[in-house]
């Protein structure tokens, strides 16, 4: 009987071998995948096992933490002025994951980032708990407050940049939400979370309109068209009359493009066309410049590409395949042209910074728990959509708009301000309430410290009342003042 016994022994050996191979596969080969699986609750437990690092504005933390009991999670995130800062911080919720800076810098805030390895090792040796690092932002608390309170109950967004560096100074989006209201995982948190869901709140408060919503830019896009005209050499003297009919018949169609109201647009100079916001002049300019020139200039300003600040911003759109009449419409910010508030702030900032577009960013530096700086963001040139000469010409035109054109509401005594209004129609047959835009910059002796883009989509206002100059310009003004008075 011993021969079959030996074979049974081999068989049992194979069974054990199969088990050993399997456990090696599960606990070694698949270990990383399983331990980091988003459904593995240990991921969230570890995330909230120690206090998260803070997000810092102007040297003060806008986040905090509190301990919780009765759940797997030890610490809960708290927020100071949550709704105001929500587009910057996003949320870190025990039950609903993380977004925005809380999401992008999650590993650093929890202390799991590889760059904190040295700190962790020291903590391990000294028996201290793991600590999270801090994220120091570029934001300006006063500017942010001006933007958020300026928007008030209206729906819209504001982005302010420092044109010299690309640093984001303000980023507001309304209606907003309090990320602290669902930071835990209790029934209340769940109720608050569900109430914010788009299905239950058509205003979609958790949408970051500053980065993740594109709007038709309307007349503010004429800045890009003007830049293209100057850069291509099509226009060299901004005071020289252009050859522009009014109304302008779109190429190869019978459609007539008209202007809003009775404004002097026939053969208007580029400066006057921008001052009065002439559709006819810029529509014809766009069509004459042609698709390729317009696409090239728009993309120099950042269109058609996602931006990472380091939070992702949606790509703004300028179609790359169009017929000449569509190019004409796109050149006045209609047709398929769409831009995020961040994108239009980038346009204004490139002009204000004498033609050099700086890469926008909102994280100044990452600081380890022991306060040593782990990484510092240095300003980077993104592109040069305008030559300094042409940028100054465009600045002159934008300043005319504020001094004597449609943007007089943004005037600040003693400060040079340039701007451009926009009123973008949308909806089927343009029946929707239009969006009010205003983009501007302020200039001092040390160059331009601030460029702002404001968009207001106010469903509660009269159609006629919505205009860039009326609604959006005062908000831009108070944001610029907040930065200047700092």
């Amino acid at each position, binding site marked *: *009987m*011993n*021969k*079959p*016994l*030996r*074979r*049974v*022994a081999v*068989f*049992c*050996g194979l*069974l*054990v071998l*199969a*088990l*050993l191979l*399997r*456990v*090696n596969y*599960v*606990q*070694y080969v*698949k*270990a*990383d*995948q*399983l*331990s980091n*699986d988003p*459904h*593995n*609750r*240990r991921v969230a*437990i570890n995330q909230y096992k120690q206090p998260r690092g803070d997000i810092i504005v102007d040297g003060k933390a806008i986040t905090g933490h509190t301990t919780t009991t009765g759940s*797997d999670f030890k610490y809960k995130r708290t927020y100071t002025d949550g709704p105001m800062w929500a587009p910057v911080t996003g949320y870190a919720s025990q039950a609903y994951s993380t977004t925005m800076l809380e999401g992008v810098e999650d590993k650093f805030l929890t202390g799991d980032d590889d760059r904190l390895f040295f700190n962790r090792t020291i903590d391990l040796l000294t028996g201290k708990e793991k600590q999270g690092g801090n994220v120091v932002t570029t934001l300006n608390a006063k500017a942010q407050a001006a933007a958020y309170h300026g928007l008030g109950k209206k729906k819209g967004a504001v982005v302010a940049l420092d044109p010299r560096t690309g640093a984001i100074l303000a980023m507001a989006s309304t209606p907003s939400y309090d990320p602290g209201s669902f930071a835990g995982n209790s029934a209340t948190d769940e109720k608050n979370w569900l109430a914010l869901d788009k299905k239950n709140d058509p205003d979609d408060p958790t949408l970051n309109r500053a980065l993740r919503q594109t709007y038709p830019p309307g007349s503010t896009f004429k800045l890009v068209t003007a830049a293209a005209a100057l850069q291509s050499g099509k226009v060299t003297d901004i005071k020289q009359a252009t050859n522009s009919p009014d109304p302008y018949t779109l190429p190869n169609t019978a459609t007539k493009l008209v202007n809003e109201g009775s404004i002097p647009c026939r053969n208007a100079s580029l400066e006057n066309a921008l001052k009065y916001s002439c559709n006819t002049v810029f529509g014809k300019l766009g069509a004459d410049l042609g698709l390729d020139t317009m696409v090239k200039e728009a993309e120099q300003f950042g269109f058609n590409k996602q931006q990472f600040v380091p939070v992702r911003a949606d790509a703004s759109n300028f179609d790359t395949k169009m017929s000449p009449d569509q190019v004409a419409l796109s050149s006045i910010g209609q047709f398929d042209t769409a831009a995020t508030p961040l994108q239009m702030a980038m346009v204004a900032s490139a002009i204000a910074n004498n033609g050099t577009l700086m890469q926008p960013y909102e994280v100044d530096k990452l600081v380890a728990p022991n306060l040593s700086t782990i990484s510092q963001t240095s300003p980077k040139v993104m592109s040069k959509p305008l030559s300094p000469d042409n940028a100054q010409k465009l600045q002159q035109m934008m300043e005319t708009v504020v001094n004597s054109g449609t943007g007089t509401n943004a005037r600040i005594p003693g400060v040079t301000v340039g701007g451009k209004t926009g009123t973008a129609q949308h909806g089927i047959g343009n029946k929707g309430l239009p969006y009010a835009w205003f983009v501007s910059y302020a200039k001092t002796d040390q160059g331009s410290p601030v460029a702002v883009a404001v968009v207001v989509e106010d469903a509660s206002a009269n159609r006629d009342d919505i205009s860039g100059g009326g609604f959006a310009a005062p908000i831009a003004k108070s944001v610029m003042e907040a930065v200047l008075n700092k």
Partner: protein
Amino acid sequence: MSASNTTTITSIGAPNRRNTELALLLFAVAIPTYAFADAGLAKHGSVPAGLAEYGLGLGFLAGIAHLLVRKFAPYSDPLMLPIATLLNGLGLVLIWRLDQEPSITTPQLGGAMAPKQLIWSALGLALFAGVLVFLKDHRILQRYTYISMFLALLLLVSPIFFPARYGARIWITLPGIGSLQPGEFAKIIITVFFSGYLMVKRDALALASRRFMGLYLPRGRDLGPILVIWAMSMLILVFETDLGTSLLFFGLFVIMLYVATERTSWIVFGLVLSGAGAFVVGSTEPHVKVRVQDWLHPLALQNGGVTETAQSMYAFGSGGLFGSGLGQGYSRLIGGIAPKSDYILATVGEELGLAGLMAILLLYALLIERGIRTALAARDPFGKLLAIGLSGGFALQVFVVAGGVTGLIPLTGMTMPFLAQGGSSVIANWALVAILLRISDTARRPAPAPAPSPDAEATQVVRTQ
């Protein structure tokens, strides 16, 4: 050297390895005691209150067992008792550690399990002692071949009269005592029956056969009774929806038939039958169908929630190479009492890591190896069959449970011997180890000294230098 020594086996001085066993037992008691202290420190920051009692208690029980082995089975295998003690001790620590998780130790779930398990373990050791003391020779069991058959069938049938729990009908509930899993005992008793029956019939089964399609098929009259038993147990088990025990019994049956007859055709026959059986059960029984789906897609969400299967995979994966340390894992996320019973290995994997899990599996492998070695060394066919049946069944159980929990095969409702919470399992497995020790004692016992030969004495040559 004296020329009179014509025998190669002497009755005195043969190594019986009892001191080896004692030394190993010291480790088998020290390791769980240390683990207990470690788990307590991790959970509460202090050495657990019952540490001394636990260490001394485990040492006391192991000591009694050792003394009984010294007295009643002095030549038995020295490794089995320490391995079983170590596994049982570690099981108690793991259950105690999981008892410290309030979410899975609610009164509805039966409260703390470790104290009860300790009592069950003591009872198991009492049965171990009883077997060693009263079963003087394993061949006595041969007398009860047919009684064993009826007893095994009775035990297998009994749960049908009790309500199903967790989708399987494998428990009987005795008021005041708790619930028992009779299948655990039936496993041993049916092995006794198979051994007795096959020992008598093996020549007939092996030789009087017909050749059919290249395979030797035994005559119907030889095969009949055993096929009937098999079919009945299969039917009962399918009816009770306990796939694991069903697989175990069938595998046991095929292994023992193969060893008894030395005919490879049995393995082919067995694989065909089990394949067909698994297919039919797997495609008809909804409970089993769910298990197969869980196995194919372990991480799939169910109604938006994470399944037990996924939770156990996460526990294994999060353990990594060296584990989180006892008391520092989250295997409680599996929920219910499953982490203490079916999924106890998930806690091992997460908290002791790949290294600890492999060590535990190798302990089982070593125990199985000692059992098979006993079968090889046994001198009588009944002892050989009984030993291979018990250790082969043990191996299958370990494979089915560990394979099921780690996702190698679909999960079935069985418990890890010695490690998992469950009274029937720990008692039955102590009895199993006792029977194996009894067989190995007989197998390793030196042959009795030959009667002194006066002739040899007379012709003795004495060297005087």
